[in-house]
């Protein structure tokens, strides 16, 4: 019970800190528009690097063929792919001229305008990133469920 309360408090603090951080950022230091973008890009790179790192560890895990670990590996692979995909979309989007996108008030009329080049194609396909991140999350859930079922004590890397 105690743990439970502790966890809830921790979650709230976590969220609060995130909010506070963004308020403070405005108050203490001025961060212009490109900074948010760079932070976001670096976050992606950082996350990708950490995924590569953990995938490297998982590949060397002695029980990597067990269900839980396999799902986890798939999950991280998908996360990595999704991450790279979104990274690419961010970059491509930035490079694309505004004129490539037609964005009237009505969402249903939003369009990607020709002439098309590779970047446009990549952008369009890349925007379906949920097709990567949902399987990633699904595998993640599967993996956890498998761990729960296996009851094994030593699911360690």
């Amino acid at each position, binding site marked *: 019970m105690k743990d439970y309360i502790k966890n809830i408090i921790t979650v709230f603090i976590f969220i609060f800190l995130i909010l506070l951080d963004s308020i403070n950022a405005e108050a203490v230091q001025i961060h212009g528009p490109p900074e948010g973008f760079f932070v*976001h890009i670096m976050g992606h790179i950082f996350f990708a690097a950490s995924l590569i790192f953990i995938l490297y560890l998982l590949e060397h895990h002695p029980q990597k063929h067990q269900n839980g670990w396999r799902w986890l590996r798939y999950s991280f692979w998908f996360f990595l792919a999704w991450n790279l995909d979104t990274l690419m979309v961010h970059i491509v989007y930035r490079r694309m001229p505004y004129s490539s996108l037609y964005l009237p008030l009505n969402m249903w009329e939003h*369009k990607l305008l020709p002439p098309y080049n590779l970047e446009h194609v990549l952008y369009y396909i890349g925007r379906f990133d949920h097709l990567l*991140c949902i399987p990633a*999350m699904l595998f993640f859930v599967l993996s956890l469920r498998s761990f729960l079922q296996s009851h094994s004590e030593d699911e360690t890397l």
Partner: protein
Amino acid sequence: MSGLPLYPIYIVDFFGSLCMLVLSFIALRYAWILKRTHTRNVFYTYIFWLCMTFVALSISRSTGHALRGLLLYSGYPYLWKKLAPYSGGLNSIAFISAAVLTFYFPNVQKVMEVIKEDARRLKEAKEELEIAHEKLRDFNLRLEEKVKERTRALVLSEQKFRRLFEGSRDAIFFCDQDGCISDINPSGMNMLGFKVKSEIIGLPMKQFFVRHEDWEIYNKSIYDQGYIVDFETQFKRVDGSTIYLIITAGAIKEKNGTIIGCEGIAKDITTFKRMTEKLIYSEKMASIGQLAAGIAHELNTPLGIILGYTQLLKEDIEEQELLEELKIIEKQTKNCKRIVSDLLSFARSSERRYISKVQINDCIKQTVTIVKHTFELKGIDIVLYLDKDLPKVIADENKFTQVLMNLLNNARDAIGENGTVYIWTKHEGETEDCLVKVIVGDTGEGINEKIKRRIFDPFFTTKPAGQGTGLGLSVSYGIIKEHGGTIDVCSPPSDKEYVSRGIKTIFIVTLPASTSEKAKKRLKQLISVC
């Protein structure tokens, strides 16, 4: 306007982000359960926090996509503009947090592993320690049991040997490295005349040996051979008397062979020794007696003839000179006859013809009356201590007088001039086995230790030729033996009664008071204490 519509993307985003939200919360729930059930598992902790970032990520995305769609579609673009930076910020932070967690987790894991390893080792060590402790306890218990058992056995053995040691009739002794007595049993103390153990402990064993050579032989044998068996020797008792011992002893050695003392058993064989000596002596006397009897018998006849013819010649011859010579022959022949008859009486050749119940006291008085005069001439007194209740003995009075005369003459010769001869009569024991004792003591020169054992031998004399024949005591011996009695000599006597009077030699004649077989048998077995 031609172009690729973006709404398929929006639709996928909308449902996808909702899906993500649901999935991330499911994942969070799983992770939370896992974390709670495996509190020590670092990996689950990591997964839990990763789920938190995923939740944050899905929230930001759902706001980013779903909410945006809803807001824009429902005509609140302004609200979206306000919410958008929060969504984007949360998104970035979620990424970074996930990355940080991911990088950080293996390190924690490693640290945990090290801690776990330490804990495992500690546990192992503890278990080993416990096993060792258990073993030790077990061992201790068993040791205690064993010690108890051994102690019990030891006590039993000790008791056994203690009984043997204390109760043995023979002396059991232990000596230390310096040859000093370190322990001795009561019999041993008794044998050597000690009353208290502390008096004898620490005394050198050497001092008890009468002859120094014996000690050397004993010591050499112990050191060279490691033992000595049936070693016959003489020991000095604390009161100065000597005893005969037979010793069997062995060296006490340490493991490396160095001798640290000796232990042994000594048997007092004094009585045995005296008995054997006596036995040997009586055997000797018997054989000499037989020899003497044979010779005497053979000599008797020719001597009778010589005497007869000499007496015949004496009657025929008138010449004075020849007559004198014949008288000398007659006298010497008579001497010879006397010696021969003495020899015969020693050898029990004559029968007991005149046996009667004799009152020894009267016999002594008569004899003393006869010799008194000659004794007084030499300044020798005769003092009598006669037992008034002395029982009679069965004896040949003449022969007993002869024994008495012999003893008195010897006393006189031993004194020379001026001295005293004492005569005691005593009786011992009840009527059935009553013994009569006649003790003749003199204040003369005493008998030399070297010749003491030979004085009863026929023809043994220390007197000049012509004065003594050396038959007196041997004849007496023969007579007393014939009467079933014993004759013993003590020179010097040990009894105070004699020593205080200056007596140097006593002869003790013991005769049975009655002729009953029982008394005689007892008499034969009797051994003088002197």
